[in-house]
């Protein structure tokens, strides 16, 4: 049943191209809501025991001579990722409600990205997963290059080429695994005894390829540039979900197929992760553009995911999966506020200029949303970020205590840049005297006063805030499903 998320989304995307413009966003919304509904139904109605191992949904021969099957499967980890994709898709469409130019193409590319993500998270055939993985690359280019803002063509090209570059390493790794094991089925491959010598070089190649998309330091520079250039919906989806494709595939493929190689290289991965957390946070502290701050914060939070994966124990990896969910929601919220709520009204993202506007009073809803988003991003208890990060750190303490100390310092940096961004964008205290007028909220003369926060934006924001709060207050809703699935994975044995 959950496979229908893929089909409905693709069908909606194609249908959109032939419908009149006025209807486009409604079709997109219905498609996204349908996908989310399916994910929620699956979450609530599937018994937890069934999610403990990678259970096949559909398996149909595709090209039998080459061993390719159309094989979809689900477990707790996949379901979590499908859920966050659904939430992200709905909020992305809502925040793009006012796109006024080439709407059909915009929503087409958007839905293709979403459908590709659903496909990656549900695939159990190596070739099929790679098809969906690469499928997502080109729509990103068009979303940014046509509909983006700052330096859009450069940002789009850099992001796309980096993703494709990672894809080439993944391609090489997949070919090696396929040719050695003569099978493309992930369950079969997970039991195949690859030689230690093969694993020692195939694992880093494969993992590096996935990690580029996940924003590992030092191959992360595409992320801030690309996300700042992207339109709001683009950055929400890219930072929220597409970066998780890399870490998910790293877990599902690289770590599962080459566990010996993983053990050999896990220390290096942990090192890169910690450097990423601290470095990106430090760089974010120096940024002048709000979207760049959020872009670097995404790199920093993905560092947490990689750290969790590197711990190679149930707690750490489960925390990493939870962080993938949590950051998906939080990044979407942050970019939504920065892009749709602030930029399209104030026409600037420079923190300097924003601090002179009195956005805290002009846009109270946006201010509240950004406060909640910042709190979640900093890891304040009650929000999903805390649940995820604490799980990762407890898992990491068993293996890399030093990493936990350094990450603690990183968390302080995260709080620093988040609070700085929050204060300067909404609660600036250098409002110019010339802008203050009697009886009106003092803002910039360029301000579009008619535009209060629309219903679509409020709905999208509430959806995201409720998600992060719900999981923050009751993380067991997801962890109960994630942990058995992680325990069943091969690299832990």
């Amino acid at each position: 049943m959950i496979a229908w998320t893929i089909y409905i989304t693709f069908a909606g995307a194609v249908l959109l191209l032939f419908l009149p413009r006025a209807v486009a966003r409604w079709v997109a919304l219905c498609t996204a809501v349908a996908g989310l509904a399916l994910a929620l139904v699956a979450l609530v109605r599937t018994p937890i025991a069934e999610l403990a191992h990678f259970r096949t949904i559909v398996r149909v021969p595709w090209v039998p001579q080459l061993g390719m099957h159309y094989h979809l499967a689900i477990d707790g980890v996949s379901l979590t990722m499908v859920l966050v994709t659904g939430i992200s898709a709905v909020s992305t469409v809502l925040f793009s409600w006012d796109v006024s130019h080439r709407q059909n193409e915009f929503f087409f590319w958007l839905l293709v990205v979403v459908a590709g993500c659903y496909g990656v998270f549900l695939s159990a055939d190596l070739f099929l997963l790679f098809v969906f993985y690469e499928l997502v690359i080109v729509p990103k280019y068009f979303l940014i290059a046509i509909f983006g803002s700052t330096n859009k063509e450069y940002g789009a090209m850099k992001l796309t080429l980096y993703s494709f570059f990672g894809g080439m390493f993944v391609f090489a790794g997949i070919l090696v695994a396929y040719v050695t094991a003569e099978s493309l089925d992930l369950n079969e491959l997970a039991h195949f005894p690859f030689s230690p010598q093969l694993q020692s070089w195939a694992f880093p190649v494969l993992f590096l390829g996935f990690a580029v998309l996940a924003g590992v330091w030092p191959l992360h520079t595409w992320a801030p540039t690309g996300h700042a250039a992207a339109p709001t919906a683009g950055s929400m989806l890219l930072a929220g979900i597409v970066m998780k494709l890399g870490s998910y595939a790293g877990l599902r493929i690289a770590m599962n197929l080459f566990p010996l190689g993983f053990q050999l290289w896990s220390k290096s991965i942990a090192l890169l992760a910690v450097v990423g957390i601290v470095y990106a946070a430090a760089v974010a502290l120096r940024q002048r553009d709000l979207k760049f701050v959020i872009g670097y914060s995404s790199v920093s939070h993905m560092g947490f995911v990689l750290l969790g994966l590197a711990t190679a124990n149930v707690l750490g990896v489960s925390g990493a999966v939870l962080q993938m969910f949590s950051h998906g929601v939080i990044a979407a919220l942050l970019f939504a506020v920065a892009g749709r709520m602030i930029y399209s009204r104030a026409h600037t993202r420079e923190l300097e200029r924003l601090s002179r506007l009195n956005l805290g009073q002009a846009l109270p809803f946006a201010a509240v949303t950004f406060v909640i988003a910042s709190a979640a991003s900093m890891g304040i208890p009650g929000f999903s970020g805390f649940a995820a990060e604490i799980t990762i750190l407890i898992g990491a303490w068993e293996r890399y205590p030093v990493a936990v100390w350094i990450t603690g310092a990183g968390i302080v940096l995260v709080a620093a840049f988040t609070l700085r961004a929050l204060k300067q964008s909404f609660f600036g205290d250098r409002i110019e005297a010339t802008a203050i007028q009697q009886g009106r909220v003092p803002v910039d003369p360029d301000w579009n006063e008619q535009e209060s926060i629309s219903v679509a934006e409020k709905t999208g924001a509430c959806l995201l805030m409720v998600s992060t709060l719900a999981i923050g207050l009751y993380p067991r809703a997801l962890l109960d499903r994630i942990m058995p699935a992680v325990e069943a994975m091969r690299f832990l044995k």
Partner: protein
Amino acid sequence: MSYLELLKLASPEATVVATALVVLSVGLMIRRPAAPCVSVAALGLALAAGAVALLPRQATLLGGVLVISPLTSLFKIVCVGLALFTVLLTRWEKTPRHVGEYLAMILLATVGLMLLVESEDLLMIFIGLELLGLSLYVMVAFDKSDIRSAEAGLKYFLFGSVSSAFTLFGISLIYGIAGTTALAAISEKLGAIAGQPLLAVGIVMTLVGFAFKIAAAPFHLWAPDAYQAAPVPSAAFIASGSKVASFLVLGKIALVGFASVRGSAAWHGATAGWSPLLAALAAMSIMVGNLAALVQSNVRRLLAYSAVAHGGYTLIGLVPGSRDGFSAALFYITVYAVTLMGAFGVVGLVRRQSGGDDLSNFSGLHSRSPILAACMGVFLLSLAGIPPLAGFFGKFYLFSSALRGGTDQNLLWLVGVALFGSFISLYYYLIVLKAIFVEAASPSDAVARAPWNFVPAMLISLLAAAVLLLGIYPEVLTARILAALS
């Protein structure tokens, strides 16, 4: 064998030759011959395809010189199909003078393709090569109003003649060693004397001619001019039909004729033979083709350099010398031919409407004609190797069979070069797509407002749909090719 039987077995070729003669006459007799000639030519090609379908499953002609088998029938249909699209493309070109002669040249080149596909004898292969080549030289130089067409034709002719001379000399050396020109028999004789310098010279010289035909670096220098300056249907035919037949024949010669002197292209244990030679050609073509395409500003020239690169990828399938690899190479080149035919179709229409085929002429195509823009997007992304299009599956098939062919992935170096080339190629395809989708059409472009023809756009959409279908369900073609090869 009586002449009637011979004629029945050679009915496709006979049909095409007859069509060529009829088209010539129609062109001479009728005042405005464009539409009738094209219709007659298309009809004749359709009949020829039907004749191929009616051939027996297995037969030989002229004592084994020509062979009819599932493989040859399949690829004869492919070649006739590509020729059909070429002929239809001619209809919407700005009318060349002497339409009848032009179409007759295309049809005669098709006969050359069919002969190439079904020959199992070195001399017959040479005849097919020459028939194809001579027709193509004329087709490239056909546009007498453009001096660059003549330049391209002359370059192609000079290069081609020298390469043919090399090939003929190589064939004669092989004949001298083996005492026969039949492919199957040559292999045994060569195996007995492997290691002789004369053998190496013979193999290299024979393969030089084919390297020229498939535009493999460093024998590719004719390709950019021919693709850019020839009339669009000629360029389309060279890029598609000629390539398919040449690769099929190259595969047959290497895998059947020279099977015993294969050698190995492994990184840590290369041994002499044709395999390392093809591997070197492949690596050079990929690097030269992709790097040169990065700096092009004319779409046709860009397609030419990308053709060099794709020839390199296809050669990778032949390097391990396995059935799997040959099948992958054939699948890839067929898909590639369909893609380029469509791409040249779009180029032809854009050229006709806006006067040129530089990147600036493609600017804002998405608003001038969404259908053509979408089709071009499909073709270019398939060339770049983006799923779910056929080019992606083709590359996966090629690289996996190359890795499988060696032991312990010792062809990984070649696959690595190919992956790197593939990565570079996305940049220049995205540059073209950027011009088409991202840039806005200049409002002063009055020519751009001219109405697009519905029929050619539909034909091109058909090709784009085929590329998409083969990407989602490649079984349709791979099963046939694998069955034909076993």
